């Protein structure tokens, strides 16, 4: 098994916000009383005059950010994914997405690995809501380097962006040279029987599952696809045609999220069997990450089992 170094994801968020502040004078951070948790406190300490604090008022957070953007600022509205996506959903739809205001919405504490605090601090259906908005760019992130790179991208990119970000100490898959590319997935590992197509924080487990499968003689590729919208249809088509069996992975409900976005592409081009790893239309609970990984079947053995199911179906279809 891979022996991962670990690094705390929210620290990467906090530090990268400071880096953005250093690089781009137009970048502001808009907080809704979660600076300590999401680590935007670092930005506030360095750039108090570029920090807006609205208190516990996420609807206002989004509207204010839209107004700030209209004068040329690049506001990063940073809070937990639940509050970032759901608490101000109509404001995001009207004042940000429809109007294409240049607001960056950072959904920290996305998914279920959020410090054992339970359902209200987790978020498993934000991707579904955000990617259904016509103008939104939706990105999920896997490790500290992808977090940093996605944030840098968002500052440069003109238009509304939503980024899902985890919280805890987490395996580091990439390194400093990693660069997020909009609308592009990337092979981490070749494979010809089945491809594990990941978006977000389950990436290390995809890699481990591929190793498991290899040990059983199954050639499993691993592709990382942080860009959920726009999605890399060309790469998905390649995989569909050339490999023909897919497992999608996300820390999100399997209904409506990344897996669903992949299924849309395959259905529209080359239909192939897909197994989806994620929350199986269920909420999670308060518990340590390991326990949740196991409970929700997000562990490498479960991923490997899903890969075998996909492969089986592919083989059956082919005869």
């Amino acid at each position, binding site marked *: 098994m891979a022996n991962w170094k670990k690094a705390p994801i929210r620290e990467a968020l906090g530090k990268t916000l400071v880096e953005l502040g250093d690089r781009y004078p137009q970048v502001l951070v808009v907080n809704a009383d979660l600076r300590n948790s999401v680590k935007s406190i670092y930005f506030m300490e360095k750039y108090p005059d570029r920090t807006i604090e609205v*208190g516990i008022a996420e609807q206002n957070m989004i*509207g*204010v950010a839209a*107004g700030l953007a209209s004068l040329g600022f690049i506001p990063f509205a940073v809070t937990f994914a639940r509050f970032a996506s759901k608490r101000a959903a109509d404001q995001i739809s*009207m004042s940000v997405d429809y*109007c294409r205001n240049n607001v960056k919405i950072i959904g920290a504490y996305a998914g279920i690995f959020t410090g054992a605090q339970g359902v209200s601090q987790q978020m498993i259906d934000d991707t579904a809501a955000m990617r259904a908005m016509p103008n939104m760019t939706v990105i999920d992130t896997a490790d500290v380097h992808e977090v940093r790179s996605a944030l840098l991208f968002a500052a440069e990119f003109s238009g509304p962006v939503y980024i899902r970000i985890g919280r805890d100490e987490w395996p580091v898959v990439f390194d400093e040279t990693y660069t997020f590319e909009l609308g592009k997935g990337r092979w981490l590992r070749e494979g010809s029987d089945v491809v594990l197509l990941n978006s977000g924080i389950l990436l290390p487990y995809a890699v481990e599952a591929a190793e498991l499968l290899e040990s059983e003689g199954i050639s499993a590729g691993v592709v990382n696809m942080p860009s959920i919208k726009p999605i890399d249809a060309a790469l998905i088509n390649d995989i569909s045609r050339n490999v023909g069996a897919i497992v999608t992975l996300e820390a999100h409900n399997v209904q409506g999220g990344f897996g669903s976005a992949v299924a849309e592409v395959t259905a529209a081009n080359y239909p192939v069997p897909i197994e989806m790893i994620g929350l199986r239309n269920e909420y999670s609970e308060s518990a340590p990450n390991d326990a949740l990984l196991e409970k929700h079947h997000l562990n490498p053995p479960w991923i490997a089992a899903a890969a075998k199911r996909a492969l089986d179906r592919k083989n059956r279809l082919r005869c």
Partner: protein
Amino acid sequence: MVSDLSVLLTDRQGQPYSLTSERIKHLEYLCESTRRDIVDTLYKIGRGHAGPSLSMVELLISLYFEELRFDPSDPKWPDRDRFILSKGHGSLGYYAVLAQRGLIEKRELDTFESLGSRLQGHVDSNWLPWVELTTGSLGQGLSYAVGVAIAAKRQAKDLRAYCLLGDGECQEGNVWEAAMSAAKYRLDNLLAIVDWNNLQGGVTLEVMPSLEPFALKWQAFGWHTIEINGHDLQAVLQAYHQARQTKEKPTVIIARNIKGKGVSYMENKVEWHGGTVTKELHQIALEEINARLSELSQYADEKYGRNHG
């Protein structure tokens, strides 16, 4: 007889000017002319929110002819004041005011709500450059205006943010979130104007949650409040002026208005929140408005106004 009202104000440029009764009469004329366009368009198109549009005519005419700083030739002039119509369903009235001010052509009103028209059912910044923010989902405009006002302060720009809300709209929690943060940031470059017409969408008012004591609410949220009759142009202009003089606090003007103002059968009738006019009703409305227009006709000339960029 026309006399000097002896009301000395300063304009947005800081220049003193005296509010003469001719000037007021001229604005009144413009208001009635706008009302005519509203009811004509309503009749022609067969759709639109007449009551909410007629309610705010004086507020908007005063804004666009006397108060707002903008460049008629460039809707996106960076230093313009920002006006946000948070009650986006007042679109018809807003478009008629823009037409009156010459920012769009009057005949464009005939395209209201038709395919490809810039005049969407609710004001829409994707279609019409004079619109700062698409609204129609109530309760969102003030937050945006707060963002504008904070941004202006951070950029040391002298521009002001104006936001017009409905009274019913103030039942939205988003409005109070915005109000709280505006007070916190001491946004004296922000003016909220509430078109208080004591009616909203519902049929009878008694069943709605009451907003009173309304001024007290805003005061408790840290705002300077000014209450006026929002159809009294002099009061409106003085209130705009007073708001500009108020420092360290945002100001809200509570304009006690009449929904459907200026068309007798529409006044204070919730039925005229939406709804369309028959030929007969249109005639009645026109007669009423035309009568006032002819009374005011001697003040029709632009020379009585100012600021005709």
